[in-house]
């Protein structure tokens, strides 16, 4: 046994060469929330991992069944609490599809702009915290500064920095402020500079590349088998992006690229998010150009009442394929509302990814999956 400073137990759980069990989390800064994993080690090599989730389980899916749709929007804000607008979009699209509702164009464009800004904000947090996991403090400070500018715009638009409750079935709560396009344009310039700065500071840094290249490699077929999605899947060379695969909202009207990796390691997963943030900026610029004045809310009853039926709708969240399965019995509340949380699926593959790596890499690999526990546990 080495003196590691962490409480360790000598165990024999029949795990081959394992001679030490280290408990990491749930209160650990590098687990990005309340996530716990038991690491079985052979000196510094990980031979087995047991992930534990559920510390943030609020029974959201049971709650959904007892609330009306406009109340559920507020609960969706709290699933993936770093990309609130994207969550809301998933829900309202499901209800709209069931009701066969036509959403005004202006509302769709505003939704897309807000969702893409949210994607950039989320990726900025990822880049910052991922660097922090490896001991680089500066990028996180810079990126949180830039993210705050996005959140300030969200606040001006919806009234809240994070829990917006802004999307409605059939549109959005209210039209955006008058100087919204001008503010977004200025913001995009600043974000572009911010992303470039983080990219220059981090991406090709020698220590950073050494710690991420070839670490936590997952093959494309295996990744698909695990149900991974988002940048985590695309890093393994599978070009699957819901915005392209099954275009929703008005995404078919924009010209943008989906970066795809090849190595399937931590560096690819990181760099794809840098590239994706730049693609989001392109989308927002086009949306601003195409957007025209008009109504932002379709004519619907205040309390939505979709007909009997089932629908599965999904959207590309910053973390991956966010799905909503809605079963309606024709009431004001859903009969069943199940969320497909991308982080939940991405986290499932963690055990495979960690085994055979050193304990110092566990933080890097977990960080590269970009999980949000609010969504994993629901």
């Amino acid at each position, binding site marked *: 046994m080495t003196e590691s400073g962490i409480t360790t137990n000598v165990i024999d759980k029949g795990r081959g060469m394992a001679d030490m069990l280290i408990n990491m989390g749930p209160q650990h800064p590098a687990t990005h929330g309340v996530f716990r994993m038991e690491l079985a080690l052979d000196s510094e090599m990980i031979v087995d991992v047991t992930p534990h*989730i*559920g510390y943030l*389980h609020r*029974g959201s*899916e*049971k*709650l959904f*069944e*007892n609330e*009306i749709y406009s109340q559920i929007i507020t609960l969706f804000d709290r699933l993936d609490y770093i990309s609130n607008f994207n969550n809301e979009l998933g829900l309202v699209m499901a209800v709209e*599809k*069931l*009701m*066969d509702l036509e959403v005004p164009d202006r509302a769709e464009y505003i939704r897309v702009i807000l969702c893409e800004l949210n994607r950039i904000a989320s990726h900025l947090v990822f880049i910052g915290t991922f660097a922090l996991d490896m001991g680089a403090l500066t990028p996180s400070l810079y990126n949180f500064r830039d993210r705050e500018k996005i959140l300030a715009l969200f606040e001006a638009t919806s009234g809240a920095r994070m829990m917006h409750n802004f999307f409605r079935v059939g549109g959005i709560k209210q039209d955006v402020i008058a100087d919204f396009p001008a503010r977004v344009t200025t913001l995009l310039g600043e974000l572009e500079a911010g992303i470039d700065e983080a990219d220059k500071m981090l991406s090709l840094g020698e220590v950073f590349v050494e710690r991420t290249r070839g670490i936590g490699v997952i093959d494309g*077929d*295996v990744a*698909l*088998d*695990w*149900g*991974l999605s988002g940048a985590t899947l695309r890093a393994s060379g*599978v070009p*699957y992006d819901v915005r392209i*695969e099954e275009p929703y909202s008005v995404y078919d009207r924009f010209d943008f690229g989906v970066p795809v990796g090849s190595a399937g390691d931590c560096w690819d997963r990181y760099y794809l998010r840098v590239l994706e943030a730049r693609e989001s900026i392109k989308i927002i610029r086009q949306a601003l150009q195409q957007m025209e004045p008009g109504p932002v809310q379709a004519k619907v009853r205040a309390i939505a*009442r*979709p*007909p*009997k*039926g*089932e*629908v*599965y709708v*999904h959207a590309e969240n910053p973390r991956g*394929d966010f*799905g909503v*399965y809605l*079963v*309606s*019995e*024709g*009431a*004001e*509340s859903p*009969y*069943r509302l*199940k969320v*497909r949380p991308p982080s*939940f*699926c991405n*986290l*499932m593959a963690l055990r495979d990814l960690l085994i055979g790596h050193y304990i110092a890499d566990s933080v890097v690999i977990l960080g590269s999956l970009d999980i949000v526990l609010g969504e994993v*546990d629901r």
Partner: protein
Amino acid sequence: MTTGSDEGSTKRPPPITASRGRHAPDADQAPSRLTPKGEALSVLLPDVLTKYEVEIGADIDEVVCHAPASHIDAIAGILKSDERTSFKYLRLLCVVDYEEQEAAFDVVYHLYSLEHQHKMVLKGRVPASDPKLPTVTTVWRGADWYEREMHDLFGVEFLGHPDLRTLILPDGFEGYPGRKSYPLHDYDEF
């Protein structure tokens, strides 16, 4: 749970079920509108699954296949490995509780094929008194945590799952809180 009267009240309505609704929905049943790919798939599916008694339907834009729950692993295996369907991506696995109406649970699998870009819903029905069906972790590894979660919340047992311990509930938690029969507003002190 309380079932207070909501007539003429502007306060927050009580939990609503289909039978207690105040207005009828705009339409009773959402119309089916399959895409050409969906139409082609619903024609193809009986050919792929000749050995099993399956019922192919449609719900809005999804092809829905009701299959016998006891053979769900074999059917899932065929759907994944057959080149005409090639459903390699399990998008979602969940349980829908129809205990009150039909004394059964539906286990629902949402599948997608990246090669053919088509999607379908596979459904198996298990009796609520004895909810057991084979695991599909042998087909898609990604079913692992979904099945553990559904085992936690609904008490559905997935036979052959390698590790069906509790996932999201505290150890030793009693009852199945996902079920409709589990009260929402009754609390137990921990």
